[in-house]
């Protein structure tokens, strides 16, 4: 099973990638853990800073409106880190 993970702009700058594919992840919690690993222990604070106000969405739906970090994933799902913003 494979899912796509899309980052916020700041995370993209930090990681050098807009999106990645992850295999073998069953829940949102596992995705977040793998992304944290990509930052590495030495950049743990940066990860926390960049994700503190970023909601996690699966296929556009915030996980807080589903089962939170336990939200199960299916093959082909897209997990996005999303910051709130104000437009016009």
């Amino acid at each position: 099973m494979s899912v796509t993970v899309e980052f916020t702009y700041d995370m993209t700058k930090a990681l050098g990638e807009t999106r990645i594919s992850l295999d073998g992840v069953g829940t949102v919690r596992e995705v977040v853990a793998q992304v944290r690993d990509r930052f590495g222990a030495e950049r743990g604070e940066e990860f926390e800073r960049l994700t503190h106000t970023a909601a996690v969405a699966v296929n556009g739906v915030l996980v807080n409106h589903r089962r939170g970090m336990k939200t199960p994933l299916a093959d082909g799902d897209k997990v996005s880190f999303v910051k709130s913003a104000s437009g016009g």
Partner: protein
Amino acid sequence: MIKGYAGRILEVDLTQRTHRFVPLDEDVARLYIGGKGYGTRLLYDRTEAGVDPLGPGNVLIFATGPLNGSVAPQSNRFAVVCKSPLTGGIGNATCGGSFALGMKKAGIDLLVLTGSSDRPVRLDVDGDAGSVDFIDAGDLWGKGTYETQQILGKKKNHAVIGPAGENMVLYAGIVSNERIAGRTGVGAVMGSKRLKAISVTGKRKLEMEDPEAFRKYTKDVREMFKDHPVLGESMKRFGTGAIVNTTNGRNILPTRNFQRGSFDDAIKISGEYMEDHELKGVKTSCIHCPVTCGRDVEVEGVGRVKGPEYETLALLGSNLEIGNIKKVSEWNYLADDMGMDTISLGATLSFAMELQERGMYSAGLEFGDPAGVSEMIRDIAHRKGAGNDLADGTKRMAEKLGGSEFAMHVKGLELSAYDPRGSFAQGVEYATTNRGGCHVQGASMYMESTGPITINPQSLKLKAEIPIVQQNLACAINSMVLCIFTTYGMVPKAGHNLDPNSFLYKVITTVFENSGPMMRTMMSIKGRPMMWFEKWLTYITGENFSSGHLQEMGGRIFNLERMYNLREGVGPESDTLPHRILYEPTFKHMKSGHPLDQLLPRYYKNRGWDAGGVPTRRTLDKLQVSV
């Protein structure tokens, strides 16, 4: 006269080339504030039912409100009201720039234009002398809005049209500085009157009931704005384009004529990307506004100009599958110079692209390919070739060429850049907003899809209630006249710092989601002024404004607009959404589209309308809407 108003209306008859000043009606001001509200009242009273929107019988009203002319942040906007040539119903648009300040300095609350000139003309208004000069504008006719304003000079404040307005493109706008009153074709109405430009000047100062309290409080508000995550940080750094990545992540970024809600190259058209790659020098703002949401970019062959904001980035970017911000900036400049609304323009271009893809029409435009777009924008403005079809917008194109199921408009006005399939309250707002499919007549999406504290956007809870509160508030704000962005300040800093994945966040949003009747009751309490715009109004006019007062006044304005639409034949059957939005799912878990049929009856009931969507006598009487 109530403080905050100049106390007079300038009426100009373009056919007879005459003018007169008449006193502002204080009773109307007390009921409708000013701006859009007062303008709508005048439109209703001053036009015959069924008037041709592009004929001399339509009136074109420029309207300010009691906040205009003050130094309150975000307060230099004017409203334009007329019958819309695009929808056949209520037409209005608001605009920043400097014209509102100019009108108030000239001692004019509203400018009412009737008739039409037999040749291109411009008006030069000296408020202090009480004079209006009708000046031949043959030399300006055909020129873009940038060059026109450059020729007119910086000593006066101007509102002008470009070739799109002259040629009555149905979504042409009116430009002041680099800002545009874009929606519903107000520029086409100005063009139909052969009025190229209005210049105003004067030295009057705004009189206030309590100037000292206003001054002190405004200083505090400026400090609050400076420290606010949206008004002092995000908007300042990234402009409205910061929302591109948000709507993309929430799957509501219009892509490929609303076929999808996300775009692989979204990041390349975002405000953050613009900040890092395209931004040039000082960011721009309307007069007295510390938010500075404007963005200067470099357009090849032109120089430094205003950059695109969110709606333009989405409708001319992702919706055309163009991930090239330089191209979007170029088209944004062209649209501004030609004087047309980039929302309707983008939606019409994407409609033409889909028609071509399906073999139903050929305008030489394809998704993902920038070739031909610049030329088409010019052709639309001049109604040349296929541009003549596109100049009439998606509704009329669909009537002529087919494709109504993917013509993305409501009441003829093209949809803004928040896909309602992932934002149900916004869908109800689009369907019921009197001017058609627009987001700034309520901005419900902020409370369900884009803001820092959002309820589940795809449940049915609160989705028929939020739009009413928001539409009423927006009607009031557009009548003060204040920038709708001021409402972004209503969520305090602490709300922005909440972890959206936390249990606390879930508790707050769940309580909010279940607060339907309580929210409406709270908002309708007529107490003391709490929000900054309520206090400003109170300090300036001496009248007491609170949330309850604004909800009532906004509701009055909204219902008057509704009655205007009904009178003009824009009835409840037009309270709908495009077929694509209603029946084509864009989310993996959805089986169909937006559940409007389940929400509309509740909306009507909450509005105090009958089951057919008509305001009841009781509702109209309660709100003092005389029709």
